[in-house]
């Protein structure tokens, strides 16, 4: 059973969003990391890159697949988790602690279109 954390927003494509003021941390869910298997590489965007809702902003490569990570909302990258460059497996170890990017949100109302923890949990059952 995959872990889902309360208080986060979720995209149907298995990304989570943690909101802090005007900023959002984005990562992938436990379900996503479990499906991917052992992660060997995370291709990160750069600070100042623009994220467009629904468009890919990162690629995660595991021993069995390479998957595009889609932006759950629109915004500008203010921080990247560069620890993932050398230790991509951190996502396997704790997918909710090891975010990929921190973005400045352009339109907070986009959050309304995302799923709640319970809605996401239902969707992956």
């Amino acid at each position, binding site marked *: 059973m995959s872990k889902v954390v309360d208080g986060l927003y979720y995209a149907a494509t298995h990304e989570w969003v943690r909101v802090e003021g005007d900023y959002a941390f984005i990562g992938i869910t436990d379900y996503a990391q479990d499906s991917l298997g052992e992660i060997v*590489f995370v*291709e990160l965007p*750069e600070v*100042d*890159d623009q994220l467009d809702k629904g468009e890919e902003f990162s690629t995660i*490569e595991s021993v069995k*697949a*390479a998957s595009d990570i889609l932006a759950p909302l629109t915004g500008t990258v203010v921080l990247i988790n560069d620890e993932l460059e050398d230790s991509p497996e951190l996502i396997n170890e704790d997918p909710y602690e090891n975010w990929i990017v921190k973005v400045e949100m352009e339109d907070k109302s986009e959050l309304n279109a995302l799923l709640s923890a319970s809605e996401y949990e239902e969707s992956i059952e």
Partner: protein
Amino acid sequence: MFKYLPHTSEDIKEMLETIGVSSIDELFKEIPNDLMDPSFDVPKSHSELELRRRMNELANKNLALIPFVGAGAYDHYTPSVIRHLIERQEFLTAYTPYQPEISQGTLQYIFEYQSIVAELTQMDVSNASMYDGATATAEAMFMATAARKKQIVLVSKTMNPNIINVLKTYTRYRELEIVFIDEKEGQTDLEDLSSKISKEVAGVILQTPNYYGIIEDFSSVKKRIEEAKSLFILNQDLASLSILQTPGSMGVDIAVGEAQTLGLPLSYGGPYIGYLATTSKLMRKMPGRICGVTTDTEGKRAYVLTLQAREQHIRREKANSNICSNQSLLALAVTVYTAVMGKEGVKEAQMNSYKATHYLAEQINKLDTFELVYDADFFKDVLFKTTLNEEIVEEALLKEGILGPLQLSKFDSSKKGQLLFSATEKRTKQEIDHLVQVLEAL
């Protein structure tokens, strides 16, 4: 019965009946008669002796000329050991085998080749080689546009027009745009570069020594390129890096160019070999593949394929590059050349080429009919303007067994009378003096 034609006449009859056709001829009757039974003007078959005689006749039509033309391809000496080694049957195969269990020799020389390229360029990583310098430059352009997700590249007008044409071809089916940086006194106008660079530019592509042979100083351009978050792509002749400034020391992001100058002869334009080296940061955007060294289960040294962009095998629609091969045999030639010549030998051949071209320039410059076009240091090419008729110069030299300089007007009609001469360590003082005498007599 041919053993690869498996159908018996009964099979054929049955198939014809099934489709309702009476004979094979009827099956093909839509094809016009003159195409079905054309008459070819083919000579009668030859015996081995006759064939040899004929081929010799054809071979004798070749002219053994002394080249004084470079413009990207240079007549350096090729030690005979190269040919003996690369033609060994273990190496000379149509398809390069990569399985480590059976290909340690192949994988090892690719590893050595990469190490040589990394050392000469002072870059972090090199791939296993590219088809030639021009396509390597185009692949670098794709790397930059993919890495930066921008569609514009700046290209200096001092680049060899052959490379520019290949870049243009590569942009045709992608939505990429080339914006040219003007030239000033035969060199890249760095002020124009500064004014054209912006956050929309994925990469800046420069060349030194440039088309005119001029050694351009790019040691200060990195800052301007980096500020725009763009990538610095530099095309250089690989052998020249033994004596000129290295891309690694200039902050180049992607170093590319021709490696023909390390052991490959001039032979009707090829086959040549391109190199591509980059930083660790851009490694995963690199086309082609990397061989690495590791240890096997018994702890012994073993060579393996280490890295190749995943998109070449999965998610092909997202690939930056369709190159999944390399110039393996020629990479071996480069490796053997560099090993045979040694660090000092490679340097000496390049230094002597520099000296020969400078001696040549000094001598030509004494002639009233010739004048240096630019006042800047040059390497293996030097550009003159002549008051003589270019065709007459070419013919007069040909008559003396000399392949004369490149007429720049062949690429750009505004450059009438501009002739690009070249010399390498192979050109003797006598040969150069002879060339000058022929020019003087015109």
